[in-house]
């Protein structure tokens, strides 16, 4: 299975970066630390290094274009003949020919909207165009399940109701993309179980006392338990690319933090390599810096599995939106009379409700705790 090198976030304000240079042409063998590409924003330019050796199979983004943060930039394979997932395979013929054979951006959006692969649609020129995709779907009567881009405001008779347009903040644009991925790409389901939170409360209190902590570590410890479950069951830590399941090698734990009106999904990278206390420390540190708006791009990007709690607002049920390219987000809630709901939104393309229920049942008790109800 090829490894995706994704486009990193350079700063919190830029959701797109320009792909400026290719340093290793497809077919090249690269070693860990080799510079493979460069990207830039108005404020910064950075080189992209590979984290594992292998062959450069294909660049998935057009050179010279603005590309979305988080998108697959390049595929690395253990051998030269590994197949690159079709949906993200606008392969380069060479380093100096960045776009030949690749659908145009509008065509790519339409392909995704109609659930088509680029190879499905005949093209006349070097690049598949939007009009060619539209001709194809109209000729076959194919309809899209939903528009790829819409918002509530566009459904209103704007000309009849006075108002003002307010630009979205970077965080709000990020949320918009997340909910659109959830709506347009994932097949979301939701399940929940009831559980007795006493075992977790006892476990967290003992942990807090043992380590002389100021803050109750309950949520951090539950999130850590989730990481351990995903480490043991890699389906929880994956997504679908084309018609294959992509199981991430590391568990990057996403965790929601609300600071004022801003909701942030921070990311504890390679959480599965941490022990319980260092994980709790790392999460607390990230939460604190999230509240100061001082997270780096790496710390807000790349979650492979997520945990969200609304217990502090006494919310007894919530159904989270799946972060892009993940298959599960756990929803922790407020306990009433010792009984609480533990839920999860999941991508049904990756997981079944039964698998999620089993995971939630395991999450309902600390590893060394007593049995749940």
């Amino acid at each position, binding site marked *: 299975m090829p490894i995706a090198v994704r486009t990193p976030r350079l700063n919190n304000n830029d959701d797109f970066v320009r792909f400026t240079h290719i340093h290793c042409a497809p077919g090249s063998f690269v070693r860990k630390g080799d510079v493979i590409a460069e990207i830039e924003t108005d404020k910064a330019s950075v080189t992209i290094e590979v984290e594992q050796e292998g062959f450069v199979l294909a660049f998935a983004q057009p050179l010279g274009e603005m590309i979305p943060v988080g998108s697959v930039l390049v595929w690395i394979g253990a051998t030269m003949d590994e197949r690159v997932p079709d949906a993200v395979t606008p392969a380069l013929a060479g380093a100096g020919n960045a776009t030949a054979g690749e659908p145009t951006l509008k065509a790519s959006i339409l392909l995704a909207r109609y659930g088509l692969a680029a190879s499905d649609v005949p093209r006349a020129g070097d690049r598949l165009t939007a009009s060619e995709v539209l001709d194809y779907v109209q000729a076959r009567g194919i309809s899209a399940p939903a528009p790829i881009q819409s918002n509530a405001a566009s459904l209103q008779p704007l000309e009849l109701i006075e108002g003002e347009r307010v630009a979205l903040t970077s965080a709000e644009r990020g949320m918009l993309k997340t909910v659109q991925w959830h709506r347009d790409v994932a097949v979301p389901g939701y399940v929940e179980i009831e559980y007795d939170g006493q075992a977790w409360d006892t476990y967290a209190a003992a942990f807090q006392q043992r380590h002389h902590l100021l*803050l109750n570590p309950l949520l951090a410890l539950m999130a850590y338990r989730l990481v351990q479950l995903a480490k043991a069951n890699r389906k929880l830590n994956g997504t679908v690319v084309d018609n294959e399941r992509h199981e991430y090698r590391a568990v990057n734990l996403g965790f929601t933090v609300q600071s004022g009106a801003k909701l942030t999904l921070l990311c504890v990278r390679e959480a599965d390599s941490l022990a319980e206390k260092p994980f709790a420390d790392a999460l607390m*540190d990230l939460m604190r810096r999230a509240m100061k708006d001082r997270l780096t791009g790496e710390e807000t990007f790349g979650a492979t599995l997520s945990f969200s709690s609304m217990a502090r607002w006494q919310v007894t049920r919530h159904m989270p939106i799946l972060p892009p390219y993940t298959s599960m987000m756990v929803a922790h809630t407020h306990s009433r009379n010792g009984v609480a709901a533990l839920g999860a939104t999941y991508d049904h393309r990756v997981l079944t409700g039964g698998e999620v229920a089993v995971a939630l049942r395991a999450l309902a008790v600390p590893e060394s705790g007593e049995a749940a109800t």
Partner: protein
Amino acid sequence: MSTAATIRGKVEEIARDLGRDPRHLTDDDILPQTGLLDSAGILELIVWCEGEFGIDIPQEDLSLDNFGSIRRMTDFIEARRA
């Protein structure tokens, strides 16, 4: 306004945002035990203190001894500002 009163005002604001009644909180109550503020609420308070009083608080100083109550926070912050 005194440091303690300023901190108390913020504690009460966060507590009210969370739908909790802070009227009976004393300066010596151990905040994590009162249930008024959860962990994120205490973190929010600490981050606010850093900005309000112009100090940096290292992670290792985040202890019950330094931040367990309004009085302890006041003593810690005034000592740092002295």
